[in-house]
């Protein structure tokens, strides 16, 4: 088919022009078959460039456009818009990357120009065969599932609910609140964490648009943007949700009262087998831990379960079962949070050897007045107030052998705890802090740091090599680079500020949702600067520390951002996706079903024909254009729009001619 193709070559300032002779390239382009005009411009992505393209399309009645410029990842969307404004189908545009693939990687101008000619020839060859494509429109189902009920999940849910969306907030543990509920005070304002969190938790519980599903887990997901089906398992609490009044008599009576290690207290305290994680839990309903409850693990509890006896509402129900439900929504926000590195693997710091070496999260529980010691800061081995506390920062952080990244909040949370310890135990208590850098980057953080500097705290710049547990005290040798001296610190309590890591099940979880992780295993954002709440899977967004450790204000910002991004989709009735989906040439299809097995999105099915044979058929709304089916198809019946075999072969042939 004779075409009228226009080739537009960008100087990109000096980026392309310094290594590729743009004028020569333009002249060459016009010698190619079907190319009726070629133009050059300093910055094709500018208004001037756009105008040039549109006018040239009109003037020469073009039906195909090749733009030789930077990577399509930069401006393909923009240029498609320009071409569309010029009156053409946006998918009759082909980008020739002569920057990242050419001018930026070669030094010899002659070589680079020759290569650019080949790249353009290839692009023109494909442009000849490009077809107009229509973007499929997906009907958007309203509503969203938010996975994770920490501050990020809570914020995102409230934003979406306020915008009129139905939100299902799914939280794994029996209550929402997450890490923030475990904190005592927050930096830099020293707001009481529970006091600022619980109103939001109540809002979530009371909001007409939010359905709170606690003690529930997402077990599977199907569908695509605008059209997700999320499978959720509501775990059995063995307590009737409606009847339980949250009085707590059951926990007091429980045969295993104060015998189970409390996860909420980071192992510093105990709970019963039937429990409420903390007093302000939302919902305030008790839960039986099926892994420790005697009735559930052994079938009997002494002469009879004491919780049943104690409960005035008769709410205990050992016969309860898990319940599987399905939620139909248009988008998801993942806000599953983080975990704390277990310092046992850094054996030299003595965490495994001594009770008096604890993590900062464990210290936080000691400081918290509703914690296991009612807010008394104690040395675990004696139960008494310590006379000396030593903080070690960066335990496992910024460490190529453990976690290479900075945990971002370690410095500030240590300074905050130091303030609170001084407040509780008086100025006489000796506090030492061994740091490598103090990262007090946020608003009000430096002022906070300055205050701590003024509070008679011993700052040692250096990282200790070991913590030695002794008979009475712990000994730390630290080389202080500020004074160039080695100090020996004898201390009662050592607090390690450990690295923050993705949750143990992050890998399996990401796989289930089909979203990517970065090298550090945190969930991967679509672009670290410009799209930090998006994932590469359209319709699934990430909020909070599941993307990377961050403090509360950044989590809240991130979460509100994710909600806004989700609303971009949910506020529309229809959502336009990309047209690069697979399509079956049914005459060539033998129904072998290899493509069906290869498709990660379950978008292909076998369809019976009138003639009795079966062929594959692609559901356009589910296909994400990954191309796996095209690769495995033995007959070539499966083709991908915009990347058909004949189009790709044309590029190759043009390049090697």
């Amino acid at each position, binding site marked *: 088919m004779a075409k009228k193709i226009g080739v537009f070559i960008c100087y990109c300032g000096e980026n392309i022009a310094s290594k590729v002779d743009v004028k020569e390239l333009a002249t060459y382009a016009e010698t190619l078959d079907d190319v009726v005009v070629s133009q050059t411009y300093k910055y094709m992505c500018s208004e001037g460039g756009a105008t040039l393209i549109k006018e040239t399309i009109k003037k020469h009645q073009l039906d195909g456009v090749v733009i030789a410029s930077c990577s399509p990842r930069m401006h393909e969307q923009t240029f498609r818009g320009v071409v569309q404004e010029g009156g053409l189908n946006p998918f009759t545009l082909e980008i020739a990357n002569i920057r990242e693939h050419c001018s930026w990687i070669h030094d010899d101008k002659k070589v680079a120009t020759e290569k650019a000619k080949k790249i353009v020839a290839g692009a023109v060859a494909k442009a000849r065969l490009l077809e107009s494509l229509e973007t499929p429109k997906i009907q958007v189902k309203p509503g969203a599932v938010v996975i994770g009920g920490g501050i990020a999940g809570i914020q995102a849910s409230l934003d979406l609910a306020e915008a009129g969306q139905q939100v299902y907030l799914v939280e794994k543990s029996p209550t929402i609140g997450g890490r923030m509920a475990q904190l005592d005070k927050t930096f830099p304002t020293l707001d009481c964490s529970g006091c600022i969190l619980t109103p939001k938790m109540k809002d979530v519980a009371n909001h007409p648009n939010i359905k709170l599903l606690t003690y529930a887990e997402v077990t599977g997901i199907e569908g695509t943007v605008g059209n997700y089906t999320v499978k959720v398992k509501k775990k059995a609490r063995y307590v009737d949700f409606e009847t339980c009044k949250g009085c707590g008599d059951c926990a007091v009576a429980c045969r295993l009262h104060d015998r189970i290690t409390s996860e909420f207290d980071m192992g510093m305290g105990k709970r019963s087998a039937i429990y409420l994680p903390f007093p302000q839990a939302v919902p305030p309903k008790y839960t039986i831990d099926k892994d420790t409850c005697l009735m559930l693990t052994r079938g009997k509890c002494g002469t009879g379960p004491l919780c049943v006896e104690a409960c005035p509402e008769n709410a205990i129900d050992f016969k309860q079962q898990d319940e599987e439900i399905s939620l139909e929504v248009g988008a998801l926000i993942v806000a599953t949070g983080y975990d704390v590195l277990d310092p046992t693997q850094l054996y*030299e710091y003595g965490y495994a050897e001594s009770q008096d070496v604890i993590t900062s999260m464990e210290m936080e529980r000691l400081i918290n007045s509703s914690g296991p010691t009612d807010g008394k800061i104690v040395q675990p081995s004696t139960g008494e107030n310590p006379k000396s506390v030593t903080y070690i920062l*960066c335990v496992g952080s*910024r*460490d*190529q*052998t*453990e976690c290479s990244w900075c945990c971002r909040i370690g410095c500030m949370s240590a300074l905050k705890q130091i303030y609170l310890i001084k407040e509780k135990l008086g100025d006489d208590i000796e506090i030492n802090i061994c740091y*490598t850098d103090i990262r007090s980057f946020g608003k009000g953080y430096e002022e906070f740091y300055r205050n701590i500097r003024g509070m008679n705290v011993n700052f040692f*710049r*250096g*990282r*200790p*090599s*070991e913590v030695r547990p002794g008979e009475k005290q712990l000994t730390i*040798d*630290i*080389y202080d*680079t500020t004074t*160039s001296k*080695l100090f020996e610190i004898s201390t009662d309590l050592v607090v390690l500020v450990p690295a923050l890591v993705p949750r143990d099940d992050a890998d399996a979880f990401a796989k289930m949702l089909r979203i990517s992780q970065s090298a550090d295993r945190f969930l991967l954002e679509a672009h670290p600067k410009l799209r930090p709440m998006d994932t590469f899977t359209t319709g699934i967004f990430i909020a909070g520390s599941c993307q990377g450790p961050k403090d509360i204000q950044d989590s809240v910002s991130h979460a509100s951002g994710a909600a806004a991004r989700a609303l971009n989709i949910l506020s529309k009735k229809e959502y336009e996706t990309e047209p690069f989906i697979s399509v079956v040439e049914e005459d060539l299809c033998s129904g072998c079903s290899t493509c069906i097995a290869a498709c990660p999105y379950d978008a292909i099915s076998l369809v019976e024909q009138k003639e009795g044979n079966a062929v594959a058929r692609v559901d356009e709304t589910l296909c994400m254009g990954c191309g796996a089916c095209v690769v495995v198809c033995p007959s070539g019946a499966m083709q991908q729009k915009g990347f058909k075999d004949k189009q790709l072969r044309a590029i190759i042939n043009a390049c090697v001619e």
Partner: protein
Amino acid sequence: MSIVDLTSMGEQQKDLKKEIHERLEKLKDESAEYCYQCAKCTSGCEAHKLLELEPHEIIALLKRGLIDEMINSDIIWTCMSCFKCRERCPQKVAPVEVLFALKNMVVASGKQIPGNYTAWLQSVLTIGLLQDVKEVTTKDNKTVKRADLGLPELSKPVDPSKFQMMLSKIAVEKV
């Protein structure tokens, strides 16, 4: 453009720094450039309390190219090669290996080297071992040698001259 060390008027030796880094790379060690001076190595250095060796300072001087200052010092010979610095460094830098490189450079330049090293090298060249069979004393003051204890013959290079020749050839090889 220049950077002058006003404290000790040391000259930066970019070529020596490069040589050391190439050597580290050849022997599969991490580049010292990544050090961020946390001094964890010095905090745990077995030779620091007793002999004032500061592994982090060795790396800092290496980064700055002030090699001569180290080659001409006694401090580099205090390392006991306990490897704790390399084991614990969060950036996988190995001051112990840098020190070996510096010591090798001292030897290669023909300067005098401390202690027994020369004697050890001589012994290995001649008999293939650091030392020859020694007489030891038992608890009840008897003196015995290897042969008295029913132990088999000592294993030594079969052809000492061939061995010596091979060794002399390597001695002048650069890493």
